[in-house]
Every structure is written in structure tokens, then in C-alpha cells.
């Protein structure tokens, strides 16, 4: 069956997050003085044909390694529905 997989990709700590900085500056200038900082990442959804949620996770990890994530600058977290 098709398993719904959610992948959250974030820049690693120490990598310059220009977008996060720009978004934070913009929010502060709109009056949101409570903001400490902001980070901008990516949210990817996949629907993978797999027998179990664990199999879907394994396949999603391979897809992250093959294309979806650049390990030099990015880290990721996977959530599989039904797991």
C-alpha cells in the first residue's frame, strides 16, 4: 500500500541561513520584537508503495541520500504515517 512520508529538511548548524536571517529581520521590522531567530527549511511529502511503515522509511532514507538532501549543508527528519 501507499505510505505517506513526511520529510523535514533543515540547514545544519553553522551553515549560513540567509533566508532565515532575512525572514527574521522582516518579522522584527513588522513589530515582532519577541523573535529570537528564524530558520527556513524544506518540507517534502512522498507516497511510497511499501509493505510496512519501516520499509517506507528505509526507502525514504535512500531517496534522501540519493537526491533529496545535500549532507554537506543539510540534515533531515522523517515521519511515516502509521509508524
Amino acid at each position, binding site marked *: 500500500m501507499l505510505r505517506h512520508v513526511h520529510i523535514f529538511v533543515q540547514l545544519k548548524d553553522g551553515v549560513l541561513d540567509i533566508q532565515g536571517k532575512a525572514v527574521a529581520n522582516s518579522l522584527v521590522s513588522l513589530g515582532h520584537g519577541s523573535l529570537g531567530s528564524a530558520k527556513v527549511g524544506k518540507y517534502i511529502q512522498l507516497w511510497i508503495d511499501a509493505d510496512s511503515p519501516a520499509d517506507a522509511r528505509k526507502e525514504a532514507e535512500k531517496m534522501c541520500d540519493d*537526491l533529496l538532501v545535500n549532507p554537506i549543508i543539510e540534515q533531515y527528519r522523517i515521519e511515516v504515517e502509521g509508524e
Partner: protein
Amino acid sequence: MKTAVVIFPGSNCDRDVIHSVRDTLGCEVESVWHREERLPEETDLVILPGGFSYGDYLRSGAMAARSPVMGAVKEHAGRGGLLLGICNGFQILTESRLLPGVLLPNKTLSFICRPCFLSVENTETPFTGLFRKGQVVQFPIAHGDGLFFLPADELDDLENRGGAVFRYVSPRGDSGDEWNPNGSVNNIAGIVNPRGNILGLMPHPERAGEAILGGEDGRLFWRSVASFLEKGGRRHGLQ
């Protein structure tokens, strides 16, 4: 000398680079569609041109780096064949792990298209042999993701081996943040691999090949490659 220019869906500097190499050297230049799994026989130099391959989706150069043609490109480079990536081509080389680092969005978060001054820091590469060390040249840039980033320890390695070939400078050769258009670490505009046969740079030498376009410094780039191949007779790969 035989040159192959790879065209990906979304490449848009392929014609410029074909024109510039042909016009400067009068040599044979073939284009290769990204679905091809082989390069033309006896190719000396492979060029990955600028553009927006696959719409720059996901990360610039990420999907082009996984195109069918890249197997043959890697084989060519593995044999020591010359490989050059310009702009999006540079992004494709880092995404392929053929060169270290990554190209992030410009510090301004805007697309920048304008002339730039570069200092030639390493003239011991097949691509820069006819330049003087420290020579200031003018190649234009046109990119949104040109901030070269490398983790600190790897950056030290790159610098220690002379891997930074081009840096952004003032017209007089001074360095400073105001001359670094995109925020690249150490003002780096172009790098070479340890073996010396793979070079990537964000500025466009092919757009600096005619006085009417604002300068001819780019011609020296192509002549350097031709001279390297002629001198050493090291065709189809470094020995």
C-alpha cells in the same frame, strides 16, 4: 583540441560558450544532450554551461548532477580529462561531489547580473596557464546561488593546496567585502580539484570574449586550455 558542451533542460549559456570557444580557438566543439550516455570520441575538454538546469528545483544543479550523461562525464574526469563547470555548471560539479563545497543563495538574496573583477590566484592549472599570477580580469556574473560555502576545516585544506583559483577583487586587485558580490567564503569565485583537471567558477569567461561585450579576458582562458594540451601533448587526460 576537441570540446564537448553538455546541454541540460534549462541550460542557457551553451550557445555562448560554443561560440566563444570556436571563435577564439577555431576548434571543434560538439554539443551533447544530457540523455546521452557517451561523450564524443577523443574529447579533450567537457564544459557544463550556465543556466537553470531543471528549473533550479530542489537545489541548483542537484538533478542535472544525476543525469544519464554524468556517468560519462565522471569517467572522462576520472581518466584525467579536462572538465569545466561555469555558473550552473559549477553548481552541478559540487552537487556531483566532483568539486568540494556548495553554492548557496547570494548574501543579498537577489539575482546579480553585472561585470566582476577577479584575481587569478593559481596559474598552475590547465585553465589558467597563460594568465599572470595575481592578474586582474573582468568576467561578468549572472546568478542567484553563487555564495561558495565550505566547512572551515575543508576550507583550510582547499586554501593550503592552492585550490582557490579565482577570487573577487576590486578593479585594482584589492580584496574586501564590498568587492565580493555574493558573500562567498574567502571571496572565492572559482576552485580546482587536487588533481587539477576539474575547475568550477561562477563568473562567465564566455561572456568576456569580445571587446564589444566589454572585454576579451575570457579568450585567455580558452587559449590556456589549448596551450596546456599542445605543450604537454597530454591529450585526453593528465598523465
